[in-house]
């Protein structure tokens, strides 16, 4: 089976398994609770329940020190079945009594076995048929929405799945670490390198163990799976806040098709990373918080009305838990999930919640709202922190990257940003540094936004403001008497004032948008998006005064959320505390942009179509807009180009990993390679580093002895050694960034055989060259035994099968021993 086909199958498996676990099963278990809700709410609720359940089940079995497949099945299935029975109260007794009659008849010889099957399966078949009917009827009614959405999903599967399908590799160096932690969970160890938000790892480990899928396979394709859910969350959240049915699709469209965002804003979605996994739960926080406000308001109004009519208790009787409380509970769950997945998501979730709180000012401080929200926050934090706290109390230390993250949020005085970045080696975030130095705005002017220049800007601004203040103070004393005259003359001055204000605003926006350079693909876009944010904020503020409607508060929340993210993005340039590094804040800003534009479009739609009462006909406007934009994108070839991949691993290497793991007996093989595949190989076999192998052969004498004690030994050699370690990358459609073909001159150079940069570009080139010539020399001596296992243009894998009772001495004089 080709790797392409295998990848597609693995993607389908992972998507199905994850969807079943977080959508289908939670929906079945909570059927009575969910079946009356709208589809988007069903979807979002099921996902929250499913993920929350999976993550915590894994935490429970690990903290109870009983990890294993059986305990996983027991702790997953039993509570789910109990919950299903408790919530849905199925008539189990009735089912058995129904079964009793045909069974008796069967034993009496009066009925066939088919009768029993009919009795057993008639109800499930009916349910299944009804479900199918409902699904098709729903799709028929919403055919246009579904067509657009599925089209966009298909594009995203192609876009984000392209790299893993064609180059098969991980693409991000972080994944190796996460794979190591998940592999260690297989060995019964959670928090291998210390306490870290393990939500993502728990889900992968769950899928791996529950469905028997290989961790490697899940990690390769799960990025695409989680990205689909991330995209769906944009749609679901916009459905919650937008009036139009179709403008939420515009949001998804903007994030999917046109080439608006910098490639770094979307590249991480290709890979299975915890932060991206956590993004699934970001908008649900806002969704349920907004829903809480709406429901609470309804409840308070209904309560007042029914209390006056003395029908309050009759109304209350129908609720076991008040709907607003349920919303708050799901808000708590989603918030805790952000913390369980990644701290950065929690930071953004806090920002989002704060912006909603600002938008809902002063309602939020009403005791009936405020304390509930505070309590929910405390509960959610407790839920997320409890497993980590228990592990901490059990003696597990904090993981290093947490300290790094905290250092980014709370930098020490003496620490400069460059040092901060250096503390996180091996990740690709350093790539952003280049953007600090010099970028150009839309008009081609060079704008320096380094620290010094930034402070320069702020200083000049500050001095301007100071001088202006001094002048104003003097004027205010002198012109106090003429104030009345001025006011009288004001109507005449309005047009000129407006013009000046507009000019000032444009200048301010140009200046402010310069700080956003790099966030979007075109710097001019920064200006427009900043303008759009301001327009939306001002419009919503106005409308909030005019109409007491939560709709405008929600839009206002989105506008100030965008502003917050813009400030966060340019925090370093503005001299503000850097809560998050540039690379990550860019991702969140990009993820917020479709919300902003869709909300602005919806506000326009609401304003324009208000006289038409938002009839179906009025939806022609958003549909037309989407179609127009799609056509323009396609005609002008403005489609987002395929993203990049880091030079971490060659496709041939991953191909061989699969082949070896599939065909060779477990733990009876060793692969001599760099560290890229170490965690992958450790699942089934052994790994030896190239530097260790070659290092033993340095200063070769005839007494040098290098043996590897497994029957099968494989050697991975990069014929074109990768440009590894300095975040070298290339387009997914291009050849991996490399140092060129191995050469004798490189092999003759002195290599380093240890240290953190041993596989970095230059040394890697030398090591791979040495290994290549070693293999050639060794093959001469063992032409039958030392065979080419796999070869392509850039990679070669040799295999030798050893006599385990008399191992080969791999140490030979290959001419470049140093």
């Amino acid at each position, binding site marked *: 089976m080709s790797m392409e086909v295998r990848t597609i199958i693995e993607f389908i498996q992972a998507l199905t398994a994850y969807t079943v676990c977080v959508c289908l099963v939670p929906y079945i278990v909570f059927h009575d609770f969910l079946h009356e809700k709208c589809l988007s709410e069903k979807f979002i609720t099921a996902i929250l329940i499913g993920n929350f359940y999976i993550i915590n089940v894994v935490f429970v079995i690990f903290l109870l020190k009983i990890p294993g497949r059986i305990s996983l099945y027991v702790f997953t299935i039993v509570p789910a079945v109990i919950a299903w029975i408790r919530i849905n109260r199925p008539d189990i007794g009735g089912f058995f009594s129904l079964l009793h009659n045909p069974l008796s008849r069967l034993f009496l010889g009066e009925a066939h076995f088919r009768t029993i099957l009919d009795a057993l399966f008639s109800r499930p078949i009916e349910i299944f048929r009804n479900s199918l009917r409902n699904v098709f009827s729903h799709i028929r009614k919403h055919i246009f929405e579904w067509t657009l959405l599925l089209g966009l999903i298909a594009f995203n599967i192609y876009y984000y799945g392209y790299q893993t399908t064609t180059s098969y590799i991980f693409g991000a160096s972080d994944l190796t670490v996460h794979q190591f932690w998940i592999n260690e969970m297989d060995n019964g160890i959670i928090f291998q390198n210390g306490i870290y938000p393990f939500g993502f790892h728990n889900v992968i480990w769950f899928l791996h163990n529950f469905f028997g899928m290989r961790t490697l396979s899940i990690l390769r394709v799960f990025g695409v799976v989680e990205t689909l859910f991330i995209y769906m969350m944009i749609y679901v959240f916009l459905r919650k806040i937008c009036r139009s049915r179709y403008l939420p699709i515009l949001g998804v469209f903007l994030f999917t098709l046109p080439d608006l965002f910098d490639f770094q804003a979307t590249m991480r979605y290709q890979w299975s990373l915890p932060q991206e996994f956590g993004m699934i739960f970001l908008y649900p926080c806002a969704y349920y918080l907004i829903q809480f406000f709406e429901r609470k308001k309804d409840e308070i109004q209904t309560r007042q009305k029914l209390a006056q009519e003395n029908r309050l208790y009759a109304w209350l009787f129908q609720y076991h838990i008040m709907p607003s409380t349920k919303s708050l509970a799901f808000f708590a769950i989603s918030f805790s999930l952000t913390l369980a997945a990644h701290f950065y998501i929690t930071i953004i979730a806090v920002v989002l919640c704060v912006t909603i709180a600002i938008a809902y000012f002063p309602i939020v401080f009403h005791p009936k709202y405020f304390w509930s929200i505070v309590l929910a926050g405390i509960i959610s934090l407790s839920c997320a922190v409890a497993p980590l706290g228990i592990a901490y109390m059990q003696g597990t230390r904090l993981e290093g990257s947490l300290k790094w993250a905290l250092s980014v949020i709370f930098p020490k005085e003496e620490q400069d940003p460059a040092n901060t970045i250096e503390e996180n080696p091996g990740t690709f975030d350093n790539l952003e540094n280049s953007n600090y130095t010099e970028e150009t705005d839309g008009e081609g002017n060079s704008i320096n936004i380094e620290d010094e220049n930034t402070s320069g800007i702020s200083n000049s601004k500050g001095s301007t403001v100071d001088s202006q203040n001094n002048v104003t103070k003097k004027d205010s004393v002198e012109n106090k008497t003429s104030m009345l005259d001025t006011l009288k003359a004001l109507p005449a001055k309005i047009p000129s004032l407006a013009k000046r204000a507009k000019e000032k605003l444009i200048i301010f926006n140009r200046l402010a948008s310069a700080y956003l350079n790099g966030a979007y693909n075109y710097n001019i876009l920064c200006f427009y998006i900043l303008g759009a944010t301001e327009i939306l904020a001002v419009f919503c503020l106005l409308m909030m005064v005019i109409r007491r409607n939560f709709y405008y508060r929600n839009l206002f929340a989105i506008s100030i959320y965008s502003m917050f993210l813009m400030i966060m993005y340019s925090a370093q340039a503005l001299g503000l505390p850097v809560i998050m590094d540039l690379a990550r804040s860019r991702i969140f800003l990009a993820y917020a942009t479709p919300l902003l534009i869709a909300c602005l479009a919806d506000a326009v739609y609401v304003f324009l179509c208000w006289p038409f009462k938002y009839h179906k006909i009025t939806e022609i406007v958003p549909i037309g807009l989407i179609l127009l934009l799609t056509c323009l994108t396609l005609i002008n070839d403005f489609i987002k180009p395929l993203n990049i991949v880091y030079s971490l691993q060659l496709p041939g290497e991953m191909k061989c990993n699969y082949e070896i793991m599939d*065909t*060779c*007996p477990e733990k009876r093989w060793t692969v001599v390679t760099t560290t890229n595949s170490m965690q992958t190989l450790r699942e089934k076999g052994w790994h030896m580093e190239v530097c260790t192998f070659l290092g033993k052969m340095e200063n070769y004498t*005839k*007494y*040098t*002895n*290098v*043996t590897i004690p497994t029957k*099968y030994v494989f050697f991975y050699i990069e014929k074109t050694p990768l440009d590894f370690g300095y975040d070298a990358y290339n387009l997914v459609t291009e050849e991996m960034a490399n140092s060129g073909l191995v050469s004798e001159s490189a092999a003759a150079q002195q290599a380093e055989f240890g240290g953190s940069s041993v596989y970095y570009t230059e040394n890697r080139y030398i090591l791979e060259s040495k290994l290549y010539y070693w293999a050639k020399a*060794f093959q*001469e*001596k*063992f*032409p*039958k*035994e030392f*065979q080419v296992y796999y070869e392509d243009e850039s990679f070669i894998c040799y295999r030798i*099968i050893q*006599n385990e*009772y*008399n*191992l*080969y*001495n*791999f*140490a*030979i004089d290959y001419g470049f021993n140093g």
Partner: protein
Amino acid sequence: MKISKSAFVTMSVTMIAILVLFQFSNISAIYASQAMKNANAEQDITITSNKTIQASKLHSPSTYETALIGGKNNWETMIAEEWCIYTKQRYYRFPSLRDLYENISQNCKLLIVNAYVIDSTEDINILISLAKRGVSIILTSLPDISLFRSYPKLMELTGVRKIEADSYYTNGMTVFEGFLLGGKATYNDMKKSIPYFSLESGTKTYISAAIKNQEQKNIKNEELPPILWRNYYGNAFIFCVNYDFFQDHTGLGMLTAMISETTGYNLYPIVDSQIVICQNFPYLSNENSSRISRQYFYTSKAFCENVLWPDIVSILSATGDKFSGMIAPKLEYSDSEDVSLDSLKFYFKQTERISGELGISGDQMESISFHDEKILYDTEKFKQLAPDYDFTVFSPGNMPESEYDYYLNYFGNESVLSNIRTLVLPKEQEHKAILSFYNTKIMSLACTNNGFSHADKEDLYLRSIETALGYSAVSLDFSRVIYPNGKADDWTTLSRDMARFLDTYWKNFRKAFKQVNISEADQRARKFFALYYNYYRRNDTISLSITNFEDEASFLLDLADEKVVSVSGGTFTKAEKDKYVIHADSKTVLIEVAEDLSEN
């Protein structure tokens, strides 16, 4: 209860019918019996020695592929020569390396040389220059240790890093998997002192010595004294044998195995025959009855018929082997005891029933043997008792060649040996070839094992011959049973040993090769000698073309981590991992192979 007339008639008819049917099969078998005729004698010999490829056809002074160095009577060279005939290699024998060097053939790919011809720098330089030319070298024995010390180039050539000890007492040896047929084997009873070398990297050891208290001496497996290894030097492989394997045919299979190790795959013809030979059984007389009676409470004749025969038949039927009996009419020709006609008829009929074959044995148990008398006596007796039976197989046993040679080559049609086509020789008798033509007509097959014992050396010998030829002939000498010499010769012990050998040690080869009787083996050996073959490989397809093809031919395909997927123009049997027996039924055979990483 009353039985009706019609029911009575029906029952009676049924019973009669059953009786008739049962009796009929028995009676018809008696009437149709051909037990007193030898079916093998009725067919003419189609392949005589002049139709086969023998030494004369392969001996090629100018186009040889394999060069042998050594004297004509050097035993190691003779084994190598025999191997060249079996593998159909054009070869030429040179008395010294210098002679070879002066007359080197462009086609020469292999040099088989023994220790006795290497004694100077010039010899070593010749070996080095041949290795650099890409000629693989097999040293069937190693030069004296002093020569290694004197000539460091020899150490370099053979991959010896250091001489640890001139003579080191080893406890046995381990033959590693994949070298000889039968998998990995450890022998602990082959004690011997050998030179102890430590080898350089780039060498591969196929057989290493076992030593006592290896762990206490802190010697790793890789550091054990090597017995048979390979070094890569220049552009060729140098195989070194640090043991006396080539003092008998043990070295034969090792040559094949070494050649297989030089290439990615090796395809060579084999005989594909496994024979069980019951020497001196059936026994037709009643000699030594007093001794037998004391031990078994039977007369010799009764013991053979009532104890030995049923035991042999049950063991052979359990293992699926075919019975080939070498009749001993008498074992003491000075004795007046006469051959029993009843016994003769009994064994002939029984042999026919189990589709066995009978030949004639040449053994006698007397200190002074009456060989001429025996042949004359046997001729006379069989003329009387079984006049229609023409013996085609003769197993001379301890009868000297000079005694029977006349009867086989020159005597007329009157002798019991007149129609002999197959001569079954004892194991390693006078260094005779395993398979050869005794004369134009008679094929000589040597026994390879004693079925009543299985020592380490015998096991190694068996594996080696099986590897080279896919042939083994197990000899079970029943004179030991009829003339017991102590407890070890008690039938209880011997029958257990026999069953153990056939059912355990021989089992692997039985799976791979065909169980045949002597005449069938004879036919196969003739076809084996007659054929000539060529093969080449393109990607995953090995094409084999056979000339002088006679109905069928068998080959052994030795692969490296590959398996046979399909064969067109024949069938295949998996002998063990990487080793397949190809049964060709047409002149052109296509073998499809694929990678195989399975353990077995």
